[in-house]
């Protein structure tokens, strides 16, 4: 029996718009994954500790507030500090296209912009975990 893929979906910082995060969370769950959604206002360290505690295979960050560079960089640093740098991080939300390259340079594996079909995200997660 294959172990279910475990995913942590998190909202980092003060941004309170979580429709996208909940849709992704429920869609991944409907696709057979174990999903933990942290809710709002998570600090980078809280997200990392939750990810480690829940033994997740992937972290998905939702952020619409424009503070993605600062906060995602902190998450990645914190993952490395806790020796969990092998957990892939994906991001989504309102992120300028030009920033995707920079996010990938600091270690984000993929960024999903608005209008991405949900099936694309599901398949990406399934492929990257295998």
């Amino acid at each position, binding site marked *: 029996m294959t172990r279910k893929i475990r995913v942590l979906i998190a909202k980092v910082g003060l941004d309170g718009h979580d429709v996208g995060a*909940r849709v992704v969370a*429920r869609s991944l769950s409907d696709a057979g994954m174990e999903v933990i959604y942290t809710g*709002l206002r998570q600090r980078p360290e809280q997200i990392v500790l939750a990810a480690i505690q829940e033994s997740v295979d992937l972290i998905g960050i939702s952020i619409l507030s424009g503070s993605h560079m600062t906060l995602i960089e902190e998450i990645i640093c914190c993952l490395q500090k806790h020796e969990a740098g092998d957990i892939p991080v994906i991001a989504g939300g309102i992120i300028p*296209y030009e920033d995707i390259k920079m996010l990938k340079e600091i270690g984000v594996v993929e960024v999903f912009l608005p209008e991405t079909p949900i*099936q694309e995200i599901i398949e990406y997660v399934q492929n990257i975990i295998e």
Partner: protein
Amino acid sequence: MGDNEQLGNLQNAKTTWEKDCLEPWLKRVPERRREFQTDIGLPLKRVYTPIDLPEVDFDYQKSLGFPGQYPFTRGINPTMYRSEPWIVRAYSGFGDPKLCNERYKRLMDLGVDEITMAVDLPTQVGYDSDHIMAKGEVGKVGVAIDTLRDMEILFEDIPLSSLKRVAMLGNSFGPIALALFIALGEKQGLRPSEFVVDLQNDVLKEYIARGTYIFPIRPAVRVATDVVGYCARNAPHWYPMTFCANHINTAGAGSSKAVAFALANGLCYIEHLMEKGYKIDEIAPLFTVFCDDRADFFVAICNSRATRRVWARIMRERFKAQDPASLGIKICAYSHGGETLLEPTNNIARITLAALAYILGGVQFLSNASYDEVLGTPTVDAAKTSVRIQQILAHELGIADIVDPLGGSYFIENLTTQIENQILRELQKVEEHGGAVAAIENGYYVSQLTDGAMRRKREFDTGERPSVGVTKFRSESKIPTGAFRIEPTVEARQVERLNKVRKERNTNAVKDALEYLREVAKSGQNLVPPALEAVRAYSTIGEMCDVLRDEFGEYQGKEYFSKKGSEK
């Protein structure tokens, strides 16, 4: 010939048309779908005739009446835009106050009636710009406001009396927001009677659809309603609260369910105030409602009409309100929904059509999204276009020359009542859960939103609801670049300004004012007077909110989704 006989003849004529004209036609030219439906699940007939009025109990006097009279379906006053167009609002804010002041001056040049301040997230959740949680967030989604000094800079050369209304989108610290405007007015030499303040101040929706809550729910309701109570006695020409369906709709509810949830929230505030001893006619006139439909043009029109009628009936039947100002509620709208990241200039058409729908529905306050808002903070050109769209709608083409021009349309009247019925059914469900606070706490609201959001995403992805340029007629995949950027030095500049204020102010005055605020927080009296004293002394938003956090606690956000298929 009696009415029934006329309808009978009409039904026969329709049956003949179906047999002789429609059916042969359909064999050659089928319709695009087997069934047509709105985003909110209401079936759409092919064509509407007088036959479709009895099923909604249409009676001109009962269902419509005349504009400016109960039940206000046709309009909030007798002449509507023939006297004055709706108020043209610009929702705007970013960076630090000095930077944002420039944008506000540009907006004034363009001729806006109202500026609604977008304040940044640290401000909205009661943190100073140098708080640890503010890092990276200062000045991003709105302008950073830490003290009265920032308001003075923000409105330099912009007297509050030069705008029809001035607004702030602070929802969790209402008394402080109100105090900031009162104190700013004082600095500008203005009495409250000389300008008009509008606060969204609808904290209940924050727990489910917007997320800028600070305190636990019950104290938060007190904080928000203190502002209404204060204005009822001191500034009844102000707008201390707009209960919002818009955000709830955006979060997935669908427009009628969103109005129902918003109404439940509004009724919670009203009941709280009445328990404190306010009479309905003292407070109801101070509420406005923010509603929209982001998916269907005609639903957006009818939603406004239905909302006015629902409110009027509830106010009269449930609360026995007498004052027409209590019975007729003013509506605020935001033209958005369906905007795409690809081909952003297409959004100009979407925004224009949404705005037109709200105008045809008779709203009082309108702001347009900007066509590049999907990329980030609006550029000045996009903000300008949004203002010009409203002005074109108001002054060209004669749209503003007739009150409720679509009233009497068989379709519009049928749909208005269907929507009204849907709103009432959904409101009843919330009340069966125990009302707004219960529906937040037991997760009912949030599960409804997620269900709706899932459906919308599915309809978008499958193309069931086409998105031009994205899922239909896609000709390019170039994601636009050039999003508006907040200068990276904004945060440091703002912190410097904040430190300067802290150094220069009278620390004893601040200490005393914060003590007074604490006492009133404990005693249950109105929070606006102590907030005003604290604001005048240049207390920071963080300091004032920290006092309230000490007394009320902080809301512990819930994790609504943890296991497959279950929502907490």
